[in-house]
């Protein structure tokens, strides 16, 4: 019985993240439009886009290789697996131990690896631009991400998300400088990783400034759909990661009744909405920076993360 | 040993001395280089057999003049062996020199006679039990080599010989003065007359000799014989003599004559270490050894003449050996002996190779020799193996001795190990640099196949390789015994 329910919860979670991802994207677009006094597309516009793309035939460049065609599915799958093990509304997912925080980051890394290769496959200059810039961003984002994880792990004594969430919700956490800094760093990394303003602009097609869009320039049809879905899934993943670590309220513990799960779900949705809204607000209130300011931005994140790891000594119990 | 032994015992030592003398006389008379060359080989072979027979015969009592003990048998046998192989090499070498007309038959008669005289001198130096006699013998050997170095009569050759002669005779004087001082030290104890010059007797009473006299004596002997060992700063004659003389003589010089002088120094070191208050010979030898090693190591870099290159490498290795003996102790002495034997074999092998190369390419300039392994595989790889061995890379025998020397040095005087290792590394760098140039790269110069036989070279290399992998226990026991004897 327990196993069944656990399996059910896991399956539900997997389905949930995929289904919610476009909605979150839609929500953010909507909020941004509203902030700009525009009507904006409807919340479910992303779903429509995806379906249309899926139905279209895929146009592929002549010298695109098998890699180009397989990559989107693999990227999506990898991101999905990563997202599947993050406690969104309930801890103790049955498969949560397959991958801890480090593994999740690494999974996203594999997705990026494939995406960058796909960008170089056709052999256009824009693909190259995108890939090389993506690689540069990754070289700064990943270490800072890992240092953030170190901070958490050294404080919570585990890299297992459920455990960390449990620890963070426990009273003994208190208020720690290192955690605060880690949070800031994590937000910065998340912005960079999801190619949001000010690092990159998901809406732009101004060639020389784009990174993510430049890589996927050659994609169309179902392949593009897969990549779009993966992107919004990644955004969802990061937001749920942040909320799961730093505001782990009302996460349903395992073997609690359906009410707890329901409460957890509702709270999670609100968290998502708030997070998305905040992101939209941030994006509208700031301008995109030049590509070669990005390293400084991420370097700051890296330094903060390092600071966080070191500061955990001084603020053992503040 | 066996029934033969009484028969052999009678004349083993005598044969070692007489064969060369007789051969020299014959060679001086006989015309025609083919016979003389063959006779030369034959005589050297006989000497070698006589030397080997020293193992099986029981030894004569140490007399007033002659002595055969564990120490010098090693030297004699090594001497006779390298002398023999070199005579084979020189036969083919000289033939080529005649063809190219660098030497005349008249020269050759002189050359072969001198060769045997030199062998006689060296053997005499080894077997002599009388320090005066030993001195005479060493000088005889030296002067003959002087004449042979000058044999080409080019102004370089004459200059080299002249330099060798002047420096050599100063060395002679020093050595003699040292010998006289030893006598003076011994005379009050042993009493006047011959006894005071007989080494075996000297060693017995050395403890009661006047230390101050012994010190001065050793300084002069070290400088006098050290000149022949080629220790820096007394080395000046050595590179020129090697570079300008005929290659067989270079091989003999590096392989043997240096050992003769070294042997003399060792004898006196034993003498000195027997007397308690006397200055320790070790530090002096170690200092000179290190100086020569590092000096030669740096000198190796700017060389343009292949024979000079290996001449300096001889200085370097003599430095190592003297250092090892100066360090003393069973381990280091063993290493020193081993290193000396290995160096003689390897260096003469290298000079054989160099001789062939120089004859094929018609020059000794390093820059004119390239890509040997491609044009002359057997010669090139042989030279390569030789240099690898001399640079102290395994599995050749020199690696073992250097291993022992360096590790025991570091265990006992860590600070001394640093200059030692430094010198070794610098020398290694230089040798390998030159080797890379000579053995590899786009071939340059004549590609005519070498006619001479490479057997002597490969025989030496095989021995060195074998020693690096497996040393027969009797030999080891022998060396260890000597090592303890050397203290």
């Amino acid at each position, binding site marked *: 019985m327990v196993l069944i329910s656990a399996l059910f919860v896991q399956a539900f979670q997997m389905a949930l993240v995929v289904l919610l991802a476009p909605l979150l994207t839609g929500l953010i677009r909507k909020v941004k439009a509203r902030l700009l006094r525009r009507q904006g597309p409807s919340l479910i516009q992303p779903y429509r886009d995806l379906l249309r793309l*899926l139905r279209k035939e895929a146009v592929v*460049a*002549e*010298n695109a290789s098998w*890699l180009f065609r397989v990559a989107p*599915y693999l990227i*999506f*799958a990898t991101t999905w697996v990563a997202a599947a093990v993050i406690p969104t509304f309930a801890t103790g997912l049955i*498969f949560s*131990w*397959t*991958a801890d925080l*480090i593994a999740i980051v690494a999974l996203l890394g594999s997705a990026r*690896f494939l995406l960058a290769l796909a960008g*170089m*496959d056709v*052999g*256009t*200059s*824009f693909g190259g631009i995108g890939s*090389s*810039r993506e*690689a540069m961003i*990754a*070289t700064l984002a*990943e270490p800072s991400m*890992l*240092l953030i994880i*170190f901070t958490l*792990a050294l404080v919570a004594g585990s*890299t*297992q998300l459920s455990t960390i969430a449990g620890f963070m919700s426990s009273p003994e956490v208190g208020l720690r400088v290192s955690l605060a800094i880690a949070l800031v760093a994590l937000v910065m990394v998340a912005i960079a990783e999801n190619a949001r303003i000010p690092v990159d602009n998901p809406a732009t097609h101004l060639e020389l400034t784009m990174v993510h869009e430049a890589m996927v320039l050659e994609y169309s049809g179902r392949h593009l759909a*897969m990549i779009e879905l993966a992107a919004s899934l990644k955004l969802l993943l990061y937001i749920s990661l942040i909320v799961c670590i730093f505001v782990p309220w009302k996460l349903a513990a395992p073997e609690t009744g359906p009410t707890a799960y329901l409460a957890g779900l509702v709270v999670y949705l609100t968290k998502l909405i708030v997070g998305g809204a905040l992101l939209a607000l941030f994006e509208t209130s700031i301008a995109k920076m030049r*590509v070669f300011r990005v*390293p400084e931005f991420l370097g700051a994140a890296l330094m903060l*993360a390092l600071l966080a790891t*070191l500061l955990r*000594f001084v603020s053992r119990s503040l | 040993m066996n029934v033969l032994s009484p028969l052999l015992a009678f004349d083993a030592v005598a044969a070692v001395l007489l064969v060369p003398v007789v051969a020299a006389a014959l060679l001086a008379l006989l015309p025609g280089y083919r016979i003389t060359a063959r006779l030369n080989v034959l005589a050297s072979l006989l000497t070698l057999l006589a030397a080997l027979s020293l193992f099986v015969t029981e030894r004569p009592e140490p007399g007033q003049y002659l002595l055969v003990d564990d120490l010098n048998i090693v030297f004699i046998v090594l001497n006779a062996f390298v002398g023999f192989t070199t005579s084979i090499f020189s036969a083919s070498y000289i033939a080529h020199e005649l063809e190219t007309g660098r030497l005349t038959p008249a020269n050759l008669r002189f050359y072969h006679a001198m060769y045997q005289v030199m062998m006689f001198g060296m053997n005499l130096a080894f077997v002599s039990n009388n320090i005066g006699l030993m001195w005479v013998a060493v000088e005889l050997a030296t002067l003959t080599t002087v004449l042979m170095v000058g044999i080409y009569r080019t102004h370089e050759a004459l200059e080299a010989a002249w*330099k060798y002669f002047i*420096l050599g005779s*100063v060395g002679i004087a020093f050595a003699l003065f040292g010998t006289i001082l030893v006598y003076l030290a011994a005379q009050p104890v042993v009493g006047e007359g011959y006894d005071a010059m007989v080494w075996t007797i000297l060693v017995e009473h050395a403890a009661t000799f006047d230390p101050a006299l012994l*010190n001065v004596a050793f300084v*002069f002997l070290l400088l006098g014989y050290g000149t022949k060992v080629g220790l820096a700063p*007394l080395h*000046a004659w050595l590179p020129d003599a090697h570079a300008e003389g005929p290659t067989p003589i270079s091989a003999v010089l590096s392989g043997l004559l240096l050992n003769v002088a070294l042997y003399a120094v060792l004898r006196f070191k034993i003498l000195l270490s027997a007397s308690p208050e006397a200055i320790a010979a070790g530090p002096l030898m170690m200092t000179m050894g290190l100086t020569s090693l590092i000096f030669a190591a740096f*000198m190796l*870099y700017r060389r343009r003449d292949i024979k000079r290159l290996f001449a300096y490498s001889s200085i370097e290795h003599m430095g190592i050996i003297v250092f090892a003996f100066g360090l003393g102790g069973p381990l280091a002495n063993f290493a020193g002996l081993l290193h000396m034997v290995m160096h003689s074999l390897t260096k003469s092998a290298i000079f054989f190779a160099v001789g062939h190369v120089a004859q094929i390419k018609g020059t000794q300039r390093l820059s004119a020799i390239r890509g040997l392994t491609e044009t002359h595989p057997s010669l090139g790889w042989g030279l390569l193996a030789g240099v690898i061995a001399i640079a102290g*890379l*395994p599995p050749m025998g020199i*690696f*073992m001795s250097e291993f022992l020397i360096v*590790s025991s*040095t*570091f265990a*006992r005087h860590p600070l001394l190990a640093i200059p030692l290792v430094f010198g070794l*590394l610098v020398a290694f760098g230089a040798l*390998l*640099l030159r080797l890379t140039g000579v053995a*590899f*790269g786009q071939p340059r110069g004549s590609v005519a196949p070498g006619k001479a036989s490479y057997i002597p070279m490969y025989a030496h290399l095989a021995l060195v390789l074998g020693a690096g992998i497996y040393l027969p226990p009797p030999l080891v026991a022998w060396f260890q015994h000597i090592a303890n004897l050397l203290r």
Partner: protein
Amino acid sequence: MTSLSVILSCIVMFLVTGGLGILMSRSHRATPAIYGLSLLLSAIAFVISLMHLATSFVDAPTVILPIGLPWLGAHFRLDALSAFFLLVANLGGTLASLYGLGYGRHEHAPHRVLPFFPAFIAGMNLVLLADDAFTFLISWEFMSLASWALVMSHHRDAGNRRAGYLYIVMASFGTLALLLAFGLLAGPEGAYGFAAIRAAEHAPLTAGLVLILLLLGAGSKAGLVPLHVWLPLAHPAAPSHVSALMSGVMTKIAIYGFIRVTFDLLGAPMWWWGLVVLLLGGATAALGILHALMERDLKRLLAYSTIENIGVIFVSLGLALAFKANGMGLASALALTAALFHIFNHSLFKSLLFFGAGAVLTATGERDMEKLGGLIHRMPVTSFTFLVGCVAISALPPFNGFASEWLAFQAILQSPNLPQWALTIAVPAVGGLLALSAALAAACFIKAFGITFLGRPRTPAASDVSEVDRFSLGAMGVLAGLCLLAGILPGIVIDGVASVVLSLVGDRMPVQMDIPWLSIVPIAESRSSYNGLLVFLFIAFSASATIYIVHRYASRTLRRSAAWDCGFPEGSPLTQYTAGSFAQPVRRVFGTLAMRVRERVDMPAPGDLRPATFSVEQHDLVWEGLYVPIAGAVGFAAEKLNRLQFLSIRRYLSLVFLALVFLLLVLALWS
């Protein structure tokens, strides 16, 4: 017949094979014969060592042969540690021989390779079996010598000659350092046997000095910064399967030497050893991969990345030392396991990548990536296996590189329990460095694969090529499969090396194979766990499911057309991103600091017909700061001393005279 004697006889046979290589060097049948033989022999040795590692946990058979140092003899010993490294070495040897069967056909001077290839393998095996200082060093140097001969096999290229020279000099420098270390350990009586050294008590000062010398000796062979300069020159100079052996295996032999002495012979470590090794490792990893990223020569890129992986391994080793010094057995075991695991992995994917580079070389005759491109169409198998290697070496799940890196991170997370502040501060920082180099590695291999295999061919050399022979493909395929297996079943490897770890730090990680779902759990599931198998299955399942669904219910039609490229017309292949341009952002970020990169753009004024030029200058700071001065000093001294060559006889006499006077003065003053 014990396993040890079998392996020893294998070694002898290797040497015989080498001799055979000399004899039949000119015959055309030599290549298959030699490689076939060495394939067979190393396969046997591999199986034996595998069996020994699997079956016997404690017993270490020893053999003493009456060769080598007379009164000592040559001691050989096969314990768990040697067995593990033998396994690595002979696995590499087997596959390199297999690859050589095909690759060797294209060798234009086989007689310069064939004799030394088996000798090289023999040397590596000897080092691993040696149980006394002399045998160890002689085998060590023999290994260097054989590999040097292989590096010099294409000797007409001046670059190769220079590489070989630098290599042999550095190697003998390392050997001398090791010699000194063993001299210290053996003491004045010259007790060179490892058993004696193990038994002896070593003063802290001595032990520290030995560690430094060891870092010089083993480090120079493994390629630790700043002793790495020879490596990126020498490894690529050799034929590719030899490069694979040198990078994949020989560097590991160096690490074996380090482990053997520090963990086995030297007794209890001190905590600062860990710190030193840790910092060196971190620096090596970062610097190595940065250089790799700047490289445009494929094989040299791989060599630099070898340096990075060596750094990673040394970081884990440093951690293990630090933990061991503080008596934290489990943590130490974890770190050491991570190190050994990474050693195994790196030997796999680095060989694979070098094989791939060799295949590219044979197919196109090019090593310069900027002349390649688009090979994925014409060399599908090679490119696929190469891709696997790239993903694996970039430490990405579900492949093996990630598993070992993950373990290393887990070990780093044990640091807060360390009593020394220096360590607790340094370890996470080095961890950050490790993460940085992992990310850089990913970027580096995106570049390596993307520029070489993807896009459009940049030169005719790259456009008309065909897939390489089946031996090479077989070798690469096996390696790729092993990379995946070790990635999804890391538990097997961890349990495999457990006996080694147990013998070295006296503790081991919990048994992994009986954990449900075959996941790996270093300490406790609540702390951390990873399950490569499930990750792989999930990815595979969800990907195929998605593909099926999309193709079944959405569109499956596909149309080929010209690339879109924002509407720009498709320019010449030279408009593609090159290796240099790909690295440019990273170069700007890190290069200016790490290698003083300067970029110069010369843009002529409008109307000026000069072509615009762009030039990058980049410095190898280690080379310019350390090696150039040393070489200069030696040259200077040589030049000055060389004057003594040209003195007159009188001057020489005065030298003698001065020497005499000096000695007499010494006597006069000596009392």
